[in-house]
């Protein structure tokens, strides 16, 4: 089976090589992601040459089928280590797919479903099994429709196991008590329920950026905890190239440069499960076109918060994440290769090897080398180290998390 696959790839490559010199002189910028390009319709597909193209992908006019193949290949190529031949027949490998009902995670769900079906039909078994988890984040207006979407997903892709969790479950599931210590102390904080704790924590934060940051950090932690408790060896994140580039710059802006390699690289994470980003070579705008072209059932499952709040930049509710996603939306339109270059470059950063015993941040759970907790005690901080010692008794937060949850100085 393996050699057939190789042969297929080889043919594919030859086809590419043959047509390499036929590239058109003009470069077309697809200004409206998701809309098909008129010019493309007049040309035959660059790959199969049989059918007329429906869109231009990285200056290559492609037909529907070849575009699907392009997207699938990019995602599946990232999952080579989960091929059937690597699977132990006596032990089914399980991976967790967090489903947010956004374009990326739904597309990934669809692609993996196809891939597993293909594996099954060819070999009678699959390389891995998938658990799907949806995390409900308070503030999503779409909560009512979640159950509906979830049952639609189960119907469309019945081979997977589905779980729905509320974000406050993170207080119930995380093994250590440190998260609880981050919640503001009130009279009855001992007896507070998880939803109350979460609400108290979020309400204590003073900016939209901090709230969004803490929510997404908690969501990641809950996903990790769920992966561990449900026996998944790794997590398949839906992040596209564009999303990873956004994350690179927004985590940099939030002072988390130190943890970037752990946040955007494939492989071992410091959390004890592997992180995989199968969509890392696909641009967001390409997936939007993909969903558009595939149609049902994929398009029925998508529920994205109405295109990023067009609110002005002066708005108090703008977050750093919003800023970056708006920025890369523009860059992606005009300079798609710069987006992938950001991700490729960040991928070259080398994670420091962190022993299991390394001190960790109480919120994001990332190892903090030399215990450099808090925002003090570095060149850019003018407070003397006295404060650092005082802080050592309270929660220990990394630089980035300290910015979101400021600790009162004692």
């Amino acid at each position, binding site marked *: 089976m393996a050699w057939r696959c190789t042969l297929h790839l080889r043919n594919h490559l030859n086809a590419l*090589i043959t047509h*390499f010199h036929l590239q058109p002189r003009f470069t077309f910028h697809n200004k409206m992601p998701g809309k098909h390009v008129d010019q493309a319709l007049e040309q035959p597909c660059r790959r199969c040459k049989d059918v007329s193209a429906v869109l231009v992908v990285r200056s290559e006019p492609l037909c529907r089928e070849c575009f699907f193949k392009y997207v699938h290949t990019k995602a599946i190529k990232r999952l080579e280590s989960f091929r059937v031949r690597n699977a132990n027949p006596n032990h089914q490998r399980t991976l967790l797919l967090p489903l947010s009902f956004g374009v990326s995670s739904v597309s990934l769900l669809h692609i993996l479903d196809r891939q597993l079906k293909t594996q099954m039909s060819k070999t009678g078994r699959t390389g891995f099994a998938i658990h799907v988890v949806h995390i409900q984040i308070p503030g999503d207006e779409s909560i009512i429709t979640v159950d509906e979407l979830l049952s639609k997903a189960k119907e469309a892709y019945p081979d997977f196991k589905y779980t729905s969790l509320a974000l406050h479950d993170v207080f119930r599931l995380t093994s250590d008590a440190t998260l609880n210590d981050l919640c503001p102390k009130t009279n009855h904080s001992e007896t507070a329920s998880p939803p109350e704790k979460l609400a108290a924590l979020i309400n204590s934060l003073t900016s939209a950026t901090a709230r969004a940051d803490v929510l997404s950090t908690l969501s990641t932690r809950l996903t990790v905890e769920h992966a561990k408790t449900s026996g998944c060896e790794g997590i398949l994140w839906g992040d596209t190239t564009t999303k990873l580039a956004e994350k690179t*710059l927004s985590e940099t*802006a939030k002072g988390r*440069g130190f943890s970037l390699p752990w946040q955007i690289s494939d492989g071992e994470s410091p959390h004890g499960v592997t992180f995989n980003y199968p969509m890392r070579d696909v641009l967001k705008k390409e997936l939007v076109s993909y969903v558009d072209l595939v149609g049902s059932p994929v398009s029925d499952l998508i529920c994205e918060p109405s295109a990023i709040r067009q609110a002005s930049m002066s708005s108090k509710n703008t977050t*750093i994440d919003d800023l970056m996603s708006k920025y890369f939306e523009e860059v992606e339109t005009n300079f798609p290769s*710069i987006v992938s270059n950001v991700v490729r470059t960040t991928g*070259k950063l080398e994670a420091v090897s962190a022993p299991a015993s390394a001190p960790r941040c109480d919120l994001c759970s990332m190892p903090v080398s030399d215990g450099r907790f808090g925002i003090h005690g570095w060149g*850019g901080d003018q407070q003397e180290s006295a404060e650092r010692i005082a802080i050592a008794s309270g929660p220990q937060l990394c630089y980035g998390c300290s*910015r979101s949850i400021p600790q009162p100085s004692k």
Partner: protein
Amino acid sequence: MAPKPCALCTVNPAAIVRPKDRSALCKPCFFNVFETEIHHTITSTNLFARGERIAIGASGGKDSTVLASVLKTLNERYDYGVELILLSIDEGIKGYRDDSLETVKRNAKEYGMELTILGYKELYGWTMDQVVEQVGKKGNCTYCGVFRRQALDRGAAKLGVKHVVTGHNADDVAETVLMNLLRGDLPRLSRTTSIVTSTPSSVASSSPTDPASHTNIKRSKPLKYAYEKEIVLYALHKNLTYFSTECIYSPEAFRGSARALIKNLERVRPSAILDVVRSGEDMAKLCPGSDEGCGGACGSSTSAIPMAEEEEGGCGSSNGRNAGSEMANMDRQLAQNEAAVENELEVEITFHGRDGTQQKIKKQPKKIKGQAAASVPRKAVTKQVMGKCKKCGYLSSQEVCKACTLLEGLNKNRPKNHIEVGYDAEPENHVRDLAGQVKGLEVGSG
């Protein structure tokens, strides 16, 4: 409405909202906090040594004006025991430097500091106006940038000064971090986040003891953690005179894009500028092969990082592409590389050159129908090997440094019968002449 009291002294009414953390302070407390922070930066990184003679790279702009003023204050208040002098570079752009140099002269008088103005004309034999006349407005920033980077070092060498401080602020550093992420330049990212950059003698095998060598000059940025907005406020409330102008030649796309992003970030979360700087320092430690990249955080000035053909902010850092097309050009280039890698058409051949430096040649084989593609090993991050320019002796990763290469091109095309007062008879040898002159100078002869 009664004015809010200052958050620090709680006595005076607050007059300034601090851009860094939006705290309301009175004027004296703001001055004090601003100065103390810079003092902290200087002492925690052991930036200065007693008895050191330090040249302040002075452009007449807000950053270098504030730097000169604060350093003078701190040197007196905390008795650093350093001698401060001003060093200005005159690019020779009429209407741009003329006025700002007047400002520098006034500052020199006011602060009682010795001032030296060196022109591109003296250093390279060309003013920027002459360069523009010859090469046109497109791409002239390459010349200006390359010349400027060496000019301060050359000037310092001429004065026998071993340490040059520049007015780069936190916004500049943050901007450079984001810009280098966008451009995918990790080595440069890791170098520019460091508070001390230098052209250390350790790389040079020859004459590290030469007192006038311009390859052994320490560069630092004491305002690395100071916000641009606070610098402006400080200058405003201290009534410092500075000259603000944009270069009349051109802007650049990558930095512009990063700058806009930084400004927006600051609006959303004021600490973001400092946070980007912190991220940059931390990422420097994660850059492959950069064990030295401590970003100045390790508190030792011995961790100097080679900085020769580097760009650190402000203008003069474009790669010679004119404004809007810089990003487009890079995008096109990257797209072609991606296609080549994907189609496995690119073969990289590495061999060792005569002088032991690695050279790489990229070959694109003819695309023949049905030809099997050779497999390509993944490209590693190229590590720059620093050597010396064989013409002028300046630190360079190439055999001949950029400035000498550019000068050669300029001089070749210089009109032969152009008559001008003070015209250099042998422009070809100008740089070598300068090197000769520099070697002949005594320490402190400036």
